[in-house]
């Protein structure tokens, strides 16, 4: 074998590579930086913002979105999208509350089973028929909500959580934070491990980066996709179940438009909607960022509902523009 050596790229350490790394950092951690900045602003601007109680309310509320966003991150990195999560979230809650009359195990397993099945079906349709994820999961969004309405007497029946053990899963606290927060942290860590350090994670990135190439490189494309949507369905169902435990009831009016919040969080977190790049740290930061924006708006106290919307929209736009410009400026 020849010993000739072609130096293709300059070694890291020179300006180019450094800049590239910085731009990568901003892409990945832009949300984290903006989040940090907002927290600083909030802390100095409002007395009651940085209190443990307020922080807890943001973190607890964010945990359910975060669980769904973990699944969505996998889906989006794989180059897909899942619009059905809002409906699965509410279905999961209703089923958990209904199932709680048969004990905590049923309350937890029933929503996982049902939402997992929906995720699986969507995954199979997407992977095996080549239909667009957007449309399959849009049908999921409609169909699952219809199903939820059907089992709750057109939404009129709210099942209450009767099982104390199950309710405790959503309400129990350690250090002022409820269990779902810790569950979210564990799931996020597992998700990171899965994404970065397993073959499955690599396959997800590969499919999103170039599906055709991934197939030719021997990635089991269809199977990976099925797992990704299955996972997203399971996590949305789990979030719904935990939320039902927290609320002690299977509220039927939840989750409308939730998919857009989750997608926004994931994208703000630096995951590309075109797939192939992104990660979970950004997603978690994105979820918290949206929570903090809401909390800041609440702190102001007397904004009318319309102004609140203007402010959230403007914030969202500013965040993505800032992120884009920063990473553009740093690009080679």
């Amino acid at each position: 074998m020849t010993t000739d050596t072609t130096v293709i790229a300059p070694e890291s350490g020179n300006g180019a590579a450094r800049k590239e790394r910085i731009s990568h950092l901003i892409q990945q951690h832009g949300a984290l930086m903006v989040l940090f900045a907002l927290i600083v602003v909030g802390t100095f601007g409002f007395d009651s913002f940085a209190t443990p109680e307020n922080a807890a309310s943001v973190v607890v509320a964010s945990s359910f979105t975060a669980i769904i966003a973990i699944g969505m991150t996998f889906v989006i990195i794989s180059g897909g999208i899942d619009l059905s999560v809002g409906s699965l979230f509410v279905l999961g809650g209703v089923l958990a509350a209904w199932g709680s009359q048969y004990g905590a195990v049923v309350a937890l397993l029933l929503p996982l089973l049902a939402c997992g099945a929906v995720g699986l079906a969507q995954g199979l349709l997407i992977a095996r028929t080549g239909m667009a994820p957007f449309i399959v999961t849009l049908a999921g969004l409609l169909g699952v909500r219809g199903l939820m309405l059907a089992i709750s007497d057109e939404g009129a029946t709210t099942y209450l959580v009767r099982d104390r053990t199950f309710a405790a899963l959503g309400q129990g606290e350690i250090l002022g934070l409820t269990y779902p927060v810790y569950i979210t942290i564990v799931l996020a860590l597992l998700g990171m491990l899965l994404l970065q350090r397993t073959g499955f994670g690599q396959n997800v990135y590969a499919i999103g980066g170039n599906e055709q190439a991934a197939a030719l490189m021997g990635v089991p494309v269809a199977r990976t996709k099925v797992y990704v949507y299955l996972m997203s369905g399971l996590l949305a169902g789990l979030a719904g179940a935990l939320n039902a435990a927290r609320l002690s009831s299977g509220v039927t009016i939840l989750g409308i438009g939730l998919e857009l919040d989750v997608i926004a969080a994931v994208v703000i977190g630096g995951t590309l909607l075109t797939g192939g790049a992104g990660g979970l740290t950004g997603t978690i930061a994105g979820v918290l960022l949206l929570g903090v924006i809401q909390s800041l708006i609440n702190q102001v106290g007397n904004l009318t509902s319309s102004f609140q919307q203007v402010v959230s929209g403007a914030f969202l736009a500013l965040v993505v523009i800032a992120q884009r410009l920063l990473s553009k400026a740093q690009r080679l």
Partner: protein
Amino acid sequence: MLEARGISKRFPGVLALDRVSLALRPGEVHALVGENGAGKSTLIKVFTGVHRPDEGELRYRGEPASFATPLDAQRSGISTIYQEVNLVPMMSVARNLMLGREPRNRFGVIDAARMNAEAERVLAGYGVETDVRRPLRTLGIGAQQMVALARAVSIDAKVVIMDEPTSSLEPREVATLFGVIRRLREQDIAVIYVSHRLEELYQVCDRVTVLRDGRLAHTGDIHELERIQLISLMLGRDVGEVRSGGLTRFSRDRGRAVTAEPVVEARGLKRRHVLQDVSVSVRPGEVVGLGGLLGAGRSETAKAIIGALPLDSGQVIVAGSPLRRRTTAGAIKAGISLLPEDRKAEGIIPTLSVRENIALAALPALARAGVVSDARIDQVVDTFMKRLRIKASSPHQKVSELSGGNQQKVLLARWLAMQPKVLILDEPTRGIDVGAKAEVQALIDELAEAGLGVLLISSDLEELVEGSDRILVLRDGAVVGELSGDEVTEERIMASIAEHSSTNPEEADAHG
């Protein structure tokens, strides 16, 4: 070892393979040749489970085989390098190389440090030294192809299929590749080798199969065939006809145009880390070659001239007047056209037809008040499809269904339809068969003859030398030599590159 018996494969409107048979023996290097669109890539994709044959039988190690997916084929020991680099651009080099067989630690989790170290070690063996944690897309196409090669070979394979692996490699990398192929042969691994570079076939191959229009034209020992015979088999003409028709690519005298004012002149193009003060000028009727190794900045120079690469400083002057706003549209309007290097990513619009792809850039000129005139488009499309002999079932066929070579011709047609003053050709004959290559080269001659200025980028030194009046040699984004007249030889180009090999790239950076 691996055998195809009477394979047919039909695409809508095309019979791509018509009862083709091919038998591969262990330890042989088997050349697969044919014109563009002859069906080589299709046959390979049938072997590897990408396409399912409509007819015929595959046998692998003596038994009937049918691979449902490329993964299937790969698991059974058939690994492939495809014509278009098929890796994941956004993933790191290491992850691309190791995808599917990453080293694990004792918890069964990927060991990133070991993966990167392993990747570095493997790639060093192929002459690629880079930070393997960087995204693959930051590598040049050649280096990417080497990664694909390393990946294919390092999988425990019994059969390795290479579809035009050398089309984007530079000579030294080709040498590395041949080293790898010889080693494979020693290990009794069978190789199918597709290339349009006939010299290469004679260097590494044992046997040859020729396809013509989807049909088997010949199989046999390659050394029993003369080059001219091989060509005549591919083209389907008899030897005498081929010989008299002549395969000379370029036939012009050099340096007739020296007196005219440059039709395009680029002055002091600078961009940090990419271009260090590059100046080029082309006169009407002149063919200027850009030489250099991969990553030398030839494509970047071309893109800078056409306005597609933002510059720190520099100027482009067309026919005496400088381009004011540096946009691609402005440069094209002024009369510059660029045939880009990466056909798939930067050239064809896969969702559109051949006709629409050809008319794309010229559309405004073929329209009245923004309303397109079908008659005018048809006329232009018809002209160029004939002139370039584009092989398509109709002008309305989707361009993505054409073979690579014909796609390249479609792109050429797109640019010629613009009637440019200057044509910049980045690797115009990459992946084009001998016949088409000759046609393209003849066309370059013809265009220059007609007064067009041509800037020719090619990794094929022979082509560069025979085609150019003058050659600029680039290295690390800077011009390191200019050759004209009798200096235009392969040796001088190599020497010019080598002379400056000691230059530290860091230094080049410093004054950028």
